[in-house]
Each structure stands twice: as structure tokens, then as C-alpha cells.
């Protein structure tokens, strides 16, 4: 599959280099994985259940320590960076399950989103005003409890929060899994827009078709290994690939 075109290394923001990772020391979930993610692009990661898609994100974020290999961000190894410093480094994360503080107000959730720069009050205020401008649907609820928002609104609040301190990379884990379909396309539009703003977006998704639609580059993982990669265009047109996807969609019952 490596016959597919390579894009110049200059725009590569994050790269996985021969990464191995395991839970409990002996249950390997990532095996010799080499991936790269570029600024200004949406990189989709798809694969059957249990392929290790979410684990890629967790390893990147430092929640799981690779047993071998290296993860490089902007020319610097990320290994050893504690996960709570990732925001500081410039990696935002929108996990699958809600990461909001439901009993705090929308504004307080955003304030906590500015944690790394909390001492700079003016910057916090500017950032919050900016993202509320970008997500006008949140503005009316600014002082309401986050728990009163609908599922879609909550997801936008999480995205807004991740954008507060202008990340260079933004990681999405199943961004539309728990929300109403009418919001889903809106979320994908946003994801595409983020990439156009120059952010390296990594999208892990169970929903293969919309994921390929919105992605610029796609990796397919199976059992912790990369089985295919390439431009999303190729995935959209290539019969062979569609057949392959259909196969594991059947297998995983998706």
C-alpha cells in the first residue's frame, strides 16, 4: 500500500515511529506502528473494533507509555511528557465520553479549558470570547450549567474548550458516537474547518463513510497494525479498498 503518494515531510507535525504499546505489559495493542499526521489535514484512522484506534490517541497523549518506538511532535519527542502537559505542548483532545464538568457552568468549563494560561486573566477572557464567537450556539448558555446542554451542544462545548489555547493538533475519538444525527454533519463540518485553519486533526471514527469523506489521509488499522494507508480520495474510489472495508464491517457487525 506504500505505493500511494507521500507528502513532503515539512508539513508533518506528529509522527509515530515503530511504536509498540501494551496493557499489563503483555497484551500488545500497538505493534510496530509508523504513522504521520500533517498540519492542515484531517487524518482519519479507521478499523474494526479493537484495532487499537483509540489506543493510538491514548499513546499519543501519554496515557499509555509505548514499550518501544518514538512519538515525535514538531521535531521533539513526546515520550515522557505527562499527559496533563499535552495541552501546553499544543495537543487538544476530545474524547469519546463526555469530558465536561456537568455541574459547572459553560463559562467555568471554558475557564478550566484555559488552565495552562490561567494566570493571564486577559488572555483567558479573550480566548473565551473568541470561541463563543466561533460557536454562537453556546453563547446563550454561557452562565447555565453544562449539564443542561443537549448532547450536540455538549460536544461543541468540548471542541470549543479544546480550541481555547490554540492547539496545533486536535484529536477526536468518535466525535459523533453519542450525539443526535442532525448534529453529526455539523460536527464533521467543523472538523474540516479546523484543518483548513492549519490544525493537524486526527479523527478516530467508527463511522467509516463520513470519516473518509472528511479526511485528507486515511490509515486503516487491524489488530494493532497498519494494514492500509493513503489519500482519502483513493479510499473513496478504490473498489478493492471498499471491499476490504466491507469485509471488516461485516466482521465487526458495524
Amino acid at each position, binding site marked *: 500500500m506504500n505505493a500511494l503518494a507521500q507528502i513532503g515531510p515539512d508539513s508533518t507535525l506528529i509522527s509515530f515511529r515503530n511504536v509498540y504499546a501494551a496493557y499489563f505489559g503483555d497484551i500488545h495493542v500497538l505493534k510496530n506502528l509508523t504513522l504521520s499526521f500533517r498540519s492542515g489535514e484531517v487524518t482519519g484512522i479507521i478499523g474494526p473494533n479493537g484495532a487499537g484506534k483509540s489506543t493510538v490517541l491514548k499513546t499519543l497523549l501519554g496515557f499509555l507509555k509505548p514499550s518501544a518506538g518514538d512519538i515525535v511532535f514538531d521535531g521533539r519527542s513526546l515520550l515522557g511528557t505527562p499527559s496533563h502537559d499535552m*495541552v501546553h505542548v499544543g495537543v487538544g483532545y476530545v*474524547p469519546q465520553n463526555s469530558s465536561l*464538568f456537568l455541574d459547572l457552568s459553560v463559562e467555568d468549563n471554558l475557564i478550566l479549558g484555559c488552565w495552562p494560561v490561567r494566570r493571564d486573566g486577559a488572555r483567558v477572557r479573550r480566548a473565551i470570547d473568541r470561541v463563543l464567537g466561533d460557536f454562537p450556539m453556546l453563547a446563550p448558555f454561557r452562565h447555565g450549567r453544562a449539564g443542561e446542554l443537549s448532547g450536540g451542544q455538549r460536544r461543541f462545548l468540548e471542541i470549543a474548550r479544546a480550541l481555547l489555547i490554540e492547539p496545533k493538533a486536535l484529536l477526536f475519538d468518535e466525535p459523533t458516537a453519542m450525539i443526535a444525527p442532525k448534529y453529526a454533519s455539523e460536527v464533521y463540518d467543523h472538523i474540516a474547518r479546523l484543518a483548513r485553519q492549519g490544525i493537524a486533526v486526527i479523527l478516530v471514527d467508527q463511522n467509516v463513510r463520513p470519516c473518509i469523506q472528511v479526511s485528507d489521509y486515511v490509515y486503516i488499522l487491524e489488530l494493532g497494525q497498519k494494514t492500509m494507508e493513503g489519500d482519502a480520495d483513493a479510499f473513496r474510489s478504490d473498489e478493492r479498498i471498499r471491499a476490504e472495508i466491507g469485509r471488516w464491517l461485516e466482521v465487526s457487525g458495524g
Partner: protein
Amino acid sequence: MTSLMTGAIVNAIALGILYGLLGLSLTIVYGAMRIANLAHGEMVLAGSYVAYVVTTQLGYSPLAAIPVAFILLFLLAFALFAVAGRRLQAARDPEMASFLFFYGVSLMVASGLLFLFDADARSVIFQFQPLSYRVLGLVIPKARVVAVGVAMVLVPALFLFLYRTTSGKALRAAVMNRDALRIVGVDVERLSLVAFSVSAGIAGVTGVLLALVFPAFTPFSGLDYTITGFVVIVLGGLGSPLGALLGGMIFAFSEQLTTLWIGQSAGVLAGFLILVLVVAIRPAGLIGQAEWKS
């Protein structure tokens, strides 16, 4: 009976605030870290002994004991948590692990106090001038006024911290979604360490204030405080600072009024019965979160 009644109510307000303070420091730690600090009472007691040393042995005002108790307990808790905190929080069941761990700590603190101060009762001899105020035929001891006064400064300060500062919000957020704190960039271990130490410091201050109002204690008085603290926070709702204050008030009022009408044994009984009733109706406590319900 009316003057007895007014007296009991004034009393209940004073005690309610102190009980609330007792619960407040406990609930911060429990809520944010799921750490059941069974040594909380001993930490409070250590504060009382600081008051004893500062007043009775050194001859200073009990107010001087407040910063001493805070700093001492803060440092001790800091050291303790630096050693044990990470392991406790990584346990499969942090509640259980911390309960056991702090039971051991409570034994160690109590025997340490025993070693330093012997088994007999120690009392804070310091007296305020004037001893008490007379307001509308009511005698109000100055020691209580001072204790309540300090608590009235401390409690709003704590609430300001919890509700207005980013760190305070992070602490309350930890009650709701601990994992998400890491995602927004909070160093949860450090936050826990600081929160635990501050909580112990407040426990120490509470001990000084309690020593003003209840001026005698032995190295074994700690468990009573621990039980009161837990009852108060469960009544109010775990992890809710406002609930701790409310729980303290309700516990104090039920105790005082029942003591007045029936007798002191029944007074304690009433407090616990109200707890059982409240939890039967609202399993998460008065201002608790639904996630605690089964």
C-alpha cells in the same frame, strides 16, 4: 423555657458552623480524591493540641495557634501524601484503600499524641477578656464568638476559593469528572497533594477553634470528630461544600433542640436519626449528586 430555647438556638448556630467547618475540609478531600480520610479527627485533634501548647504551655493567645496549626498540619499532610497519595489513588478501590491507610495513620497519630502528652485530659486554660458578652439577657461566651468569628472568615474564604478561583473550580470539577481534568491540562496529582495539605491545615485550624469551645481533650478524642465529620458531609451530600455547611447546621440544631426537649442522649440519637431519614428520602444527601445513588 424561652430563654433556654434562645440559648439553645444561639448555641446550635455556633456549633453548626464548627461542625460545618469540620465537614468542609473532609468533603474537599473526599469529593475531589475519593479519599476517605479516617484520620481526619486526629488531624483536628492535633490542632487542638497545638492550641494547648501555644496557650497553656507557652502563654500566647489561642489566635496565635491558628497559623501554627495550619502550617504544621499542612506540612505533615504534605509529607504523608507525597509518600502515599499516588499509591492510594492508583488503587482499584481508592475509597477502601484510603480508609484502611488512614485508619493506620489515625492509630499512629493518636499514639504519637499519647507519647507526647500522656493519656490524661489536657485543657486550653486561656481565657478571653471579657469572658462573655450579655446580649438581651443572653450570655454569649467570647470564646464562642471568637471561634465562630474565625470560622465566619474562614468559611466564606473557602467558598470564594472553591467557587471563584480557577484552582477551586478545578477541585470541584474533580468531584464531577476527574479524568477530564487531565485533558484540560490539570496536573491532578499536584492538585490532590495541595488540596489534601490545605484540607489538613484547615482541619488543624478547626481543631484550634474546637479547643476554644470544647477546651478539654485526650489523645483518643479523634474518632468522635471523624464520625461527626462524616455524618455531616453525608447528610449534606458528599463533595458538596455547601452541603457540608448545611449538614453541620442541621446536625447541631437537631442535637440542641432534642437535648432541650428530651435529653442529651436523645440529642445524639436525633442527629443520627435525621441522617438516616434524610438519606432514606434523598440517597445522595441534601445537596448531593445523583451519581451517588445506586
